[in-house]
C-alpha cells in the first residue's frame, strides 16, 4: 500500500458521533480496538477545540499518530497515519467525504459513542474507499486468509477464492492462479472492503521486532493472556518464552528464525509472531525507530572499538564526560554499566507512546552522543578508530540496515572528517562552479555535498585540487559542456579522489553511496 500512508479513516458527525470507520492498512492493528479509546478521547478533544478552526484541512499530531482532519458540510473525516498526506491523497479524501455526505450519510445508523469502531461501517462505502485507495502493493510473503466461509461470499467476483487457502502467500497465489498482480490487488482490496479477508505473515524478514510492556503478560504462566492462548493455540505456549529473549528490538525476523530454526519450524515461529503482533504486544520497528536503532548500534560499536584501540578506561572516561553534558532521559537511561564497561541498552519500551517528532529528536540526541564521544578520543588514535569503524560498517551495519535507514547518517562520518582535519581553515566563500543541489539526482547530490562540505573541512585549495584531479569543473560552464559519459567518469573519479583525503572521507563516501543505492567504483569496494 505505497500510494498513501493512511492506516484508518473515521467519519464523525458534527456532534462527534462516529458514522463510519475503516482500517486501510492491514498492519495497523493499533486502531482496533485498543487505540480506539484514546482515539475517541482525541475526537472528543477535537470536537471541542480543533474543529473550531476555519481551515478545511489540518493535521494534528496525536501521540504516535498524525490525524489529518477534513471538514465537510455535515461531517468530519479523520485520516490516521504516521505521515503527512500529499495534496493528491487529500483531494481523494475530500471527494470521498463529499460522496459520503451526499449518498451514504443518511444510510448510516447513529450508534452510541461507546460503540466499537467495527460496528460503524458501511460496506458499499467501504468498497468505494478501496476503489480509490486500493492496495498498491502487497508483500509477496503475506498470506491472505478468509474470516468467513468463502462459499458464502457474494460481493466479489469469486475468481480469486479458489486460490486463497490460508497457507499460500501472495507470490504463490500469483504463480498458481496466473493472475496479473494488479488484478489480484484489486480483488483483494474488494474483499478487504467487505471484511472477509485478513493476512498472516505480515512481518518482513528484514523487520526488526521488539516487545512492548504488555508482552510480559505472555510470560506469566497464570495470566489471563497465557490462559487464553493455551486454550486457542496450545502449541504456541512453549515457543513464546524462547522467543522472548530475542525480542529486544535489535534482531530482525530473519535472525530470529536462524536462532530458533533448529528447535522450531519456521512457519510455527512466524505464526507466533503474527499472533503477538495482532495482539499488539510486539511491534515491527517504524522507520524512525530503525534510525534510532542504527545510531545506538553505531554507538555500541564505537564503545567496543574504542576499548580495543585506546588505552584502558579511555572509552569509559569519554562516555561519562559526554553523558555529563546531556540531559535527555531517553538516551541517558539507555546507557548501562556491565562488567565495568558501558553498554547501550537496546530495549524499546522506553520509546512506547512517543510521537514521531520526539523520536526524530531522540535520533538527533543519539547522533550528538556519537559525535561528542568521537571528539573526546585520543586524536593520535582517531585514524585507527575510524579504520575499525569502517570495517564494522561494512561487515555489520551495511548488511543489517537498509539505505533508507541511513538517511541523514552522513553527518557522522563528515564529523569524523572534521575531527581528523586538525586545523580548520577559515572559509569566506565556497566555490561551486556549475554544481547544483538538485534534490533528485543521486550522484550529483553526493558530488555537490562533498565538494561544498569538503571545502569547509579541508579548505578550498585542497578541494580544488581534488576536483582538478577528477575533472569536476569548479567554474561556470555552459549547460551542455559537462554532460554524458565525461560527467559520469569524472564524478566516479571524484569519489575515488575524495576517498584519498583520509579514512573518514572514505567512510563518508561509503555511507553516501550506500544511502542512494549506488555502486562504488571497483577500486573502492570494501
Amino acid at each position, binding site marked *: 500500500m505505497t500510494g498513501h500512508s493512511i492506516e484508518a479513516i473515521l467519519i464523525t458527525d458534527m456532534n462527534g458521533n462516529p458514522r463510519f470507520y475503516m482500517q486501510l492498512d492491514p498492519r495497523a492493528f493499533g486502531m482496533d480496538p485498543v487505540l480506539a479509546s484514546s482515539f475517541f478521547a482525541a475526537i472528543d478533544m477535537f470536537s471541542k*477545540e*480543533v474543529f473550531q*478552526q476555519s*481551515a478545511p484541512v*489540518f*493535521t*494534528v*499530531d496525536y501521540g504516535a499518530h498524525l490525524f489529518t482532519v477534513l471538514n465537510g458540510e455535515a461531517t468530519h473525516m479523520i485520516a490516521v497515519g504516521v*505521515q*503527512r498526506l500529499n495534496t493528491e491523497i487529500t483531494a481523494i479524501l475530500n471527494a470521498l467525504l463529499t460522496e459520503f455526505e451526499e449518498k451514504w450519510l443518511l444510510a448510516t445508523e447513529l450508534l452510541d459513542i461507546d460503540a466499537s469502531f467495527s460496528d460503524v461501517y458501511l460496506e458499499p462505502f467501504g468498497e468505494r474507499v478501496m476503489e480509490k485507495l486500493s492496495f498498491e502493493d502487497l508483500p509477496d510473503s503475506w498470506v491472505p486468509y478468509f474470516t468467513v466461509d468463502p462459499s458464502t461470499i457474494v460481493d466479489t467476483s469469486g475468481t480469486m477464492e479458489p486460490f486463497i487457502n490460508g497457507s499460500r502467500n501472495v507470490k504463490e497465489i500469483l504463480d498458481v492462479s496466473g493472475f496479473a498482480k494488479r488484478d489480484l490487488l484489486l480483488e483483494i482490496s474488494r474483499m478487504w472492503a467487505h471484511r472477509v479477508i485478513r493476512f498472516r505473515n505480515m512481518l518482513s524478514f528484514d523487520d526488526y521486532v521488539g516487545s512492548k510492556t504488555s508482552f510480559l503478560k505472555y510470560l506469566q504462566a497464570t495470566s489471563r493472556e497465557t490462559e487464553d492462548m493455551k486454550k486457542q493455540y496450545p502449541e504456541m505456549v512453549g515457543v513464546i518464552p524462547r522467543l522472548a529473549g530475542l525480542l529486544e528490538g535489535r534482531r530482525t525476523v530473519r535472525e530470529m528464525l536462524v536462532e530458533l530454526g533448529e528447535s522450531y519450524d519456521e512457519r510455527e515461529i512466524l505464526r507466533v509472531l503474527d499472533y503477538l503482533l495482532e495482539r499488539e504486544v510486539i511491534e515491527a520497528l517504524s522507520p524512525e525507530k530503525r*534510525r534510532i536503532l542504527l545510531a545506538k548500534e553505531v554507538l555500541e560499536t564505537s564503545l567496543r572499538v574504542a576499548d580495543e584501540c585506546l588505552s584502558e578506561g579511555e572509552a569509559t572516561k569519554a562516555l561519562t564526560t559526554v553523558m555529563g*553534558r546531556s540531559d535527555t532521559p531517553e538516551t541517558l537511561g539507555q546507557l548501562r554499566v556491565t562488567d565495568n564497561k558501558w553498554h547501550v541498552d537496546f530495549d524499546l519500551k522506553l520509546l512506547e507512546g512517543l510521537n514521531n517528532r520526539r523520536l*526524530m*529528536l531522540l*535520533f*538527533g540526541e543519539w*547522533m*550528538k552522543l556519537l*559525535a*561528542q564521544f568521537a*571528539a573526546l578520543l585520543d586524536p593520535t588514535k582517531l585514524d585507527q578508530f575510524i579504520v575499525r569503524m569502517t570495517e564494522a560498517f561494512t561487515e555489520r551495519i551495511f548488511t543489517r540496515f537498509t539505505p533508507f535507514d541511513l*538517511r*541523514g*547518517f552522513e*553527518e*557522522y562520518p*563528515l*564529523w569524523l572528517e*572534521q575531527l581528523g582535519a586538525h586545523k*580548520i*581553515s*577559515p*572559509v*569566506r*566563500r*565556497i566555490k*561551486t562552479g556549475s554544481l547544483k*543541489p*538538485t*534534490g*533528485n539526482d543521486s550522484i550529483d547530490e553526493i558530488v555537490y555535498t562533498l565538494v*561544498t*562540505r569538503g*571545502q*569547509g*573541512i579541508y579548505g578550498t585549495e585542497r578541494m580544488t585540487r581534488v576536483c582538478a584531479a577528477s575533472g569536476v569543473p569548479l567554474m561556470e560552464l555552459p549547460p551542455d559542456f559537462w554532460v554524458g559519459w565525461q560527467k559520469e567518469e569524472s564524478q566516479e573519479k571524484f569519489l575515488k579522489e575524495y576517498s584519498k583525503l583520509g579514512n573518514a572521507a572514505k567512510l563518508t563516501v561509503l555511507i553516501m553511496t550506500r544511502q542512494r543505492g549506488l555502486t562504488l567504483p571497483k577500486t573502492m569496494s570494501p
Partner: protein
Amino acid sequence: MSPTYLLKICTVGAASVGKTSIIIRYSTGTFREHYSPTLGTGFAYKKMKLGNNFVNAQIWDLGSQDFLERVRANYYIGTQGVIFMFDVTSWESLNAVLDWKNEVDRHVDDYQSVLVANKIDLVDERVISEPEGIELAKKLGMDYIEVSVLLDKNVNEAFELISTRICETFV
C-alpha cells in the same frame, strides 16, 4: 548592465528548528522529511534577481550543537546576513535566539538580520504568537517573517528579505 552581488548568509538557531530544511527547500524546492543534526556546516546557493540586481546568495547552514561553537567560529568570516530561526512550537528555541545573537555578535561586526519563525503549519501545537515573535524581532532590531518550510510558505520571501536588506547597504 546590472551588477551581480555575491552574498554570504548564515542560518543559526536552536536544534531542529528547520535550518537545514529551509535551505534545502529554498535551493532545491524539496522538503526533507527526516531530521538529522548538522554536525559541521552545510552549504547551498541560489541565484535570484532582486529589482535590477542579480544576486548569488551563498547560504551557510551552521550546526547548532553547543560543542560545535569552535567549528562555527571559522565560518562566520565574511558573513553579511544572518537568519535567526526559531520554531513556533518551542519556547526554548525562541529564548535561544538571544544567545545566538550574542554568538554572532562576537564573530561578525556588521551584518543584516531577519528573525524567521518556522513551523507555522503546526497550528494546534503553536505556543508563540506572531505578536510575540514581532516583539522579539523589534527588540533585537531585526525584520520578522513567519514561514512554513513544510508547506513552502514564505520561504523564498525570507531569503529575498535578507538579501534585499544586504543589497540596501551597498547603495
